[in-house]
């Protein structure tokens, strides 16, 4: 099970049209602009709960998700706003969800980007417990294998989540069953405040692949075309029935774990260096305007268009109604469709008679 490390200066991936190259830019820019808007809303306390950024990691999310077809299933984490957008999530949905609106995708049940759509766009609503999505995606892709459907799954884990038992059990299960699954480890250097060196003694997380008997590939996660290329290859492997691939995408988390995190634990200069020398959007712009001869004006036009989209989505989201309390009782089970409201919420006085024992002694003198 050879582990290959690919280098940045690989040729642009075959089969990507100019339109697609532009699309990749559009998704990365949309991700960044939308997150910047969320920061503004967060500061205005219009965001309920924490805000998680993927600044500097947009290429991992966008490049990998771009390698999937609509029928393929994606399992995103909190850093994968870009992946969800590529897979069809609407900025309006994201904004409503972050603002806990009544018409948000989960009707206020879950926060940030914890939502999904397994009917049409095919991305699965994540839970907070890290690692758990790996077994779940093993099962999603096991289904495609059982049915002989040519569909593929992709699941993300962070460097930190690779330490969970669920990650291990899930990827091993998928590997033994040769499920059509791509496991992407987004190695951004930190798990909350914990550097990867305290998460594992291995130099490279991709070295875990051999232990599962699957191929592993490590790539530059800030080179969107590179990310696309390696993911695309893994997806094709999976679709061809050759089972699981582990990808390690090297990137860097430039913002804190969430907005509240001051990042005091980060060595001075580290963030600045990454921002100055290795920003995935800057790098791609240089590539597009250089190598691929795209006019800066064309990109500027896209930026404007995206700003307009995000502006109107924001206005629409802000005007949306809040959640309705009693709706909280609906949808726990398929049957019953609604849970009963508790006794003390009703007209409690009326409860007393119900308790009288017809043919017995009473204690209402109490």
């Amino acid at each position, binding site marked *: 099970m050879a582990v290959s490390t690919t280098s940045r200066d690989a040729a642009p991936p075959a089969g990507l049209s100019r339109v697609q190259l532009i699309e990749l830019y559009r998704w990365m820019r949309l991700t960044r602009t939308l997150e910047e808007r969320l920061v503004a809303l967060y500061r205005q306390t219009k965001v309920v709960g924490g805000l998680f950024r993927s600044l500097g990691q947009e290429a991992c999310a966008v490049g990998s998700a771009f390698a999937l077809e609509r029928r393929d299933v994606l399992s995103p984490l909190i850093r994968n706003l870009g992946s969800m957008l590529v897979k069809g999530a609407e900025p309006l949905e994201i904004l409503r969800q972050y603002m806990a609106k009544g018409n948000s995708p989960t009707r206020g*049940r879950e926060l940030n980007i914890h939502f999904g759509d397994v009917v049409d766009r095919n991305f699965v609503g994540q839970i907070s417990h890290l690692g758990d999505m790996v077994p779940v995606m*093993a099962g999603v892709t096991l289904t495609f294998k059982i049915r002989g459907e040519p569909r593929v799954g992709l699941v993300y884990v962070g460097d930190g989540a690779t330490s969970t038992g669920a990650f291990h059990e899930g990827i091993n299960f998928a590997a033994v069953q040769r499920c059509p699954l791509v496991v992407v480890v987004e190695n951004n250097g930190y798990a909350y405040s914990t550097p990867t060196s305290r998460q594992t003694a291995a130099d490279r997380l991709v070295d875990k692949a051999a232990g599962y008997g699957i191929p592993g590939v490590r790539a530059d996660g800030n080179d969107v075309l590179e990310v696309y290329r390696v993911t695309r290859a893994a997806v094709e492997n999976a679709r061809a029935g050759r089972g699981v691939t582990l990808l390690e995408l090297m990137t860097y988390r430039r913002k804190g774990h969430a907005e509240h995190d001051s990042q005091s634990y980060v060595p001075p200069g580290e963030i600045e260096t990454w921002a100055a020398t290795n920003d995935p959007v800057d790098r791609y712009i240089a590539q597009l305007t250089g190598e691929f001869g795209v006019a800066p004006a064309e990109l500027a036009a896209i930026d404007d268009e995206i700003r307009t989209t995000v502006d109107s989505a924001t206005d629409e989201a802000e005007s949306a109604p809040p959640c309705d309390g009693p709706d909280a009782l609906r949808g726990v089970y398929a049957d019953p469709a609604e849970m009963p409201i508790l006794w003390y919420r009703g007209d409690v006085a009326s409860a007393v008679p119900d308790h009288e024992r017809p043919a017995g002694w009473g204690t209402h003198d109490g």
Partner: protein
Amino acid sequence: MAEITFVEAIREALTEEMERDANVFCLGEDIGRYGGAFKATDGLLDRFGEARVIDAPISEAAIVGAAAGAAHYGMRPVCEMQFIDFISCAYDMLTNYVATARYRAMLPCPIVVRGPSGGYVRGGPFHSQNPEAAFLHTPGLKIAYPSTAEDAKGMLKAAIRDDDPVLFFEHKYLYRRIKGTMPAGDHVVPLGKARVAREGRDLSIITYAATVWKSLEAAEELERTDGLSVEVIDLRSLLPLDDEAIVATVKKTSRVLVVHEDTVTGGIAGEITARINQQCFEWLDAPVRRVGAHDVPLPYAPPLEDFVLPQTSDIVRASRWLAAY
């Protein structure tokens, strides 16, 4: 029709459901060629093939998680825990991922997690557990725990067809000791409904699983020796609980003993006592009392296990106390 054992009834249910619905498949450790530690899946591999009877690695969290993922995409997975004691390894997956799937993300999650549970078999602390109470405060799950072969079959079929995740406990003490004659045709017993195992007037015993049989023994003895008419309610489903059946028997006898094999502290009897207080306190002529296991891990040596677990004689003594109250 001929009598079959409890475990054969389980196998019949699995076979019939797999025949009926191509989306039903089984997943677990040693369930294929070997047919499962208790042979519940014996023969399924030959009949349905490796794609639908899957031998999994020793990974309970992955087994349950994979089942959930498959269920999101239309499958109807049935997971076997080799012993239900190992469901603890999937506790996070069940309570956080599976139970909340529909509510938090509109994800359909019709899975069944089944396995051999319970004591009285010298299995020691890790092959005798009754973990049902640990899942009782997890909205989103359903819990079934049948005591007869007929219910074992009918309720497992209902569980597989249910659109919600169901934990299905099969008491291993009953696997081969209990036999039943299966009703002809498509025998389905709805979840959430208790059963009157024995009619009575003076006293009600509310119980489930193996202690249903001990309670019936006790009831007979009490009839013989004390002329007491004891009603025995077999809950069958623990989540949701059948409040109607509970209230009906309380209003009938006004004296209630709740019996289970799980430890008294933290066992389901507490929940039942609270519901009785809530719904028919006035009808009580005596306190609701509990009979269960002593609050210790279950030891394996016969004299110790027998001492710790509730026995028929305990139910008899406790019933006399209630009757005399």
